[in-house]
């Protein structure tokens, strides 16, 4: 099911203002450092419409860097916000005992995230599978149930983007909520999910039916977007190189020499999901929180008694790439990478998916590097 409309550009602020009435509006805004990042929008006119292709991933709104999960009130009274406590919507008391009350702090706020890219929508489809298959992660689930994404077709991909080889961008045929294509003075609007269609229809007076000229223009944007990609990366050939044993540990050792262990790739990647759990104490309560963690950090697998399973740096680099290139396809039938190129923008050591895939292509059958 997919529905199509046209929205004149001078209607967009009005539309966003209406959408904001019953949900938080998150969109690309310029911060003090002049970087464009996703933030909750206070002033509609500050939303950046001519955005660059690569912005920080919006995964923060489904799986935030810091999230309070549960709150245990020692005194058994209503929670008092302690230092650093986040404003989460109050949860129901899920369990009571004489020692105190336990509150579920899952964030159920309604949000609309405007201006994400196709690769991000594709990443969310995979995050859904990861967080909701098997045991359902309730914190992700509550946020996901209450979020709507308005994505924008990339008519000018960055040099680091390689979604085209993965089918995760620059535009999507299905699986999005609302997708906008910039046609200059107007947006071509497509809605695919039931919630997306309903949201457009709620304000149908702002939209009109697309005409032949609109369809032609959209087709042209799609074509020219596809032609603008610098990178043609085949992760399938990387996967095969690994499975055929051409990628030896010596390769990972060489790569790892360039790693600063900053964790930037993991924080930027829309598909990296590792976290740690900790208890924070307040005078009258304890909060069980979770925080992003990184398989690239030495202490990640540390066990009691100081045993360090992945103590060697090379093993950690290898694990990151194996997870995305070999294990993801095994479990989900898709790569754990949507080609957004953020790791390439972030990594000071050029240890990004596209570069590594390209370097693997240069490996001989015996694993040695080909001499040019």
């Amino acid at each position, binding site marked *: 099911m997919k529905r199509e409309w046209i929205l004149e550009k001078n209607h967009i602020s009005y539309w966003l203002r209406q959408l904001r009435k019953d949900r938080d509006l998150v969109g690309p805004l310029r911060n003090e450092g002049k970087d464009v990042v996703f933030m909750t929008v206070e002033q509609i006119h500050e939303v950046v419409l001519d955005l660059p292709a690569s912005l920080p991933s919006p995964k923060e709104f489904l799986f935030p860097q810091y999230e309070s999960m549960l709150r245990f009130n020692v005194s058994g009274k209503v929670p008092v916000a302690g230092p650093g406590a986040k404003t989460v919507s109050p949860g129901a008391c899920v369990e009571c005992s004489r020692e105190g009350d336990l509150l579920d702090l899952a964030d159920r706020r309604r949000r609309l995230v405007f201006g994400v890219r196709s690769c991000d929508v594709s990443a969310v489809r995979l995050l859904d599978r990861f967080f909701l298959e098997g045991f359902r992660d309730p914190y992700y689930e509550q946020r996901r149930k209450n979020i709507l994404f308005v994505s924008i077709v990339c008519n000018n991909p960055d040099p680091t983007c390689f979604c085209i080889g993965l089918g995760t961008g620059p535009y999507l045929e299905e699986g999005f909520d609302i997708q906008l294509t910039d046609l200059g003075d107007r947006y071509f609007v497509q809605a695919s999910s039931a919630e997306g269609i309903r949201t457009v229809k709620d304000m149908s007076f702002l939209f009109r039916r697309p005409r032949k000229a609109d369809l032609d223009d959209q087709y042209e944007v799609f074509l020219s977007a596809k032609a603008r990609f610098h990178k043609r990366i085949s992760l399938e050939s990387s996967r095969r190189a690994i499975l055929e044993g051409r990628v030896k540990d010596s390769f990972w050792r060489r790569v790892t020499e360039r790693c600063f262990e900053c964790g930037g790739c993991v924080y930027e990647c829309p598909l990296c999901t590792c976290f740690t759990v900790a208890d924070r104490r307040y005078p009258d309560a304890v909060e069980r929180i979770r925080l992003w963690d990184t398989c690239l950090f030495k202490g990640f697998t540390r066990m009691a008694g100081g045993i360090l*399973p992945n103590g060697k740096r090379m093993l950690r680099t290898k694990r990151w790439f194996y997870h995305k290139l070999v294990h993801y396809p095994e479990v989900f039938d898709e790569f754990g990478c949507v080609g957004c190129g953020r790791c390439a923008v972030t990594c000071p050591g050029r240890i990004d998916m596209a570069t590594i895939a390209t370097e693997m292509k240069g490996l001989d059958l015996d694993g040695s590097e080909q001499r040019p």
Partner: protein
Amino acid sequence: MTRSSSGNVYVPFGGKVEVVIPQARDISLFRVKTEAPLDYAPGQFFMVSLWGAGEVPISVASLSRDDAVVDLCIRRAGAVTGALHALEAGDTVWLRGPYGNGFPLDTSRGRDVVLVAGGIGLAPLRPLIEWFMENPGDAGRVTLLYGAKSPGEIVFRDEMEQWRDRGIEVLVTVDRAEGGWEGRTGLVTGLWQELRSDLQQATAYICGPEVMIRAAMGELFLLGMPEERIITTLEAHMKCGVGKCGHCYAGPRYICTDGPVFSYREVKSYGLFLSR
């Protein structure tokens, strides 16, 4: 049974410590009683927590008897296990689970069983011992090979006589003889020749430090035991127990949800030994 009134897998439920039975230096058995009945299997584990200290995975050390009791045998290893050791009878402890796959009892049905344990690794095998004692027809001859560093570090010492009386062969060895120890000394893997079972036909369940697991699995394989019947339970750093936090991810498997029990075949083909 994963009990959680809210449907939130991270919400623990409270239990009362009924009794604390010291086992060895820094190791105690905590018998925990919960309100609702518990249903768990040998080889599974609970995420055990105290508010303000944190959560850790602990294996079930008792056989589930459709009541609301579980034994947890805990070694003081750091922050959380240290806090758990301060618990006394009547205190509240928080649990969620049970998690993990558990031991595949089908693998040993009608066969001789060799249980190989090192140190506190005997705790996760104790429910198996209780199972074989209470269901004598389920397996053939059951032998426990147990190794501890020193006589003072032997756990469940008080129960071993009872195990022997009820048909389990128990062979104990220590690395260092102390305090008038007259039993065996040496590694637990030195006891194969004392076994009266045909290893090619038997099933082994192994738990202990990873070096011991590694040696025992390799040697049993060389002695002719098929890899699918050499079974162990692995340990890894875990923060969630439900396959999300990523810490126990090894090869394409999560130790918490795909394991923690694996056969030697799985351990080898997925590269599950953590220390490489």
